[in-house]
């Protein structure tokens, strides 16, 4: 069974702090995505990375795909309360995406 493990599971930080969320697997992925989900809503796609070592930036969010395409990280700079939510990574090992276990982030004002 292919698994995508995310760490930490829960994270509570103060507004303005920086944080990094990790997504790890023993499988190689042809692409990997990050989503953010708010309570009672469906996940919303943030970014897709496809090349090993690729780095993408989305305002205060920086996404990196591992060189071996087995892992990824999401770094948030100067977190804001609006960043609060469940962050999910999803990897494509073959024909369908598998989702990670999720990191629940809470940013306190």
């Amino acid at each position, binding site marked *: 069974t292919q698994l*995508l493990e995310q760490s930490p599971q829960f994270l509570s930080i103060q507004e303005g702090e920086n944080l990094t969320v990790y997504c790890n697997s023993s499988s190689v992925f*042809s*692409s990997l*995505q990050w*989503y953010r989900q708010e309570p*009672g*809503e*469906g*996940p*919303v*796609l943030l970014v*897709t990375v*496809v090349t090993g070592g690729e780095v993408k930036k989305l305002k205060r969010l920086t996404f990196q795909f591992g060189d071996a395409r087995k892992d990824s990280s999401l770094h948030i700079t100067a977190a804001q309360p609006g960043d609060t939510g*469940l962050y*999910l990574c*999803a990897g*494509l090992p073959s*024909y*369908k*995406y*598998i*989702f*990670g*276990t*999720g990191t*629940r982030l809470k940013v306190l004002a």
Partner: protein
Amino acid sequence: SQTIHQWPATLVQPVGSPLSLECTVEGTSNPNLYWYRQAAGRGLQLLFYSVGIGQISSEVPQNLSASRPQDRQFILSSKKLLLSDSGFYLCAWSRDRNYGYTFGSGTRLTVV
């Protein structure tokens, strides 16, 4: 632009009753369609996916079934609900496997 509609938003059903959740996509043709179930605040489990009308692939054995009667319509059903069917159900579409998913707003199902 493409939109995805999923309903109802919430549903409370007794054990043994039937279920029908509907999902429709607008603004695109021949989308890949997916049904996921999400445990409370956690990752998503793929239940069914479809690459075309009448083509359904089941990922896990369960008390549920799916159908795709039209190109942009995906239905999740059950003949008799179990307590364990409670959860947050999400429909999603994508152009193909290399594109990101667009999710519906989800259905919170509570079986009592």
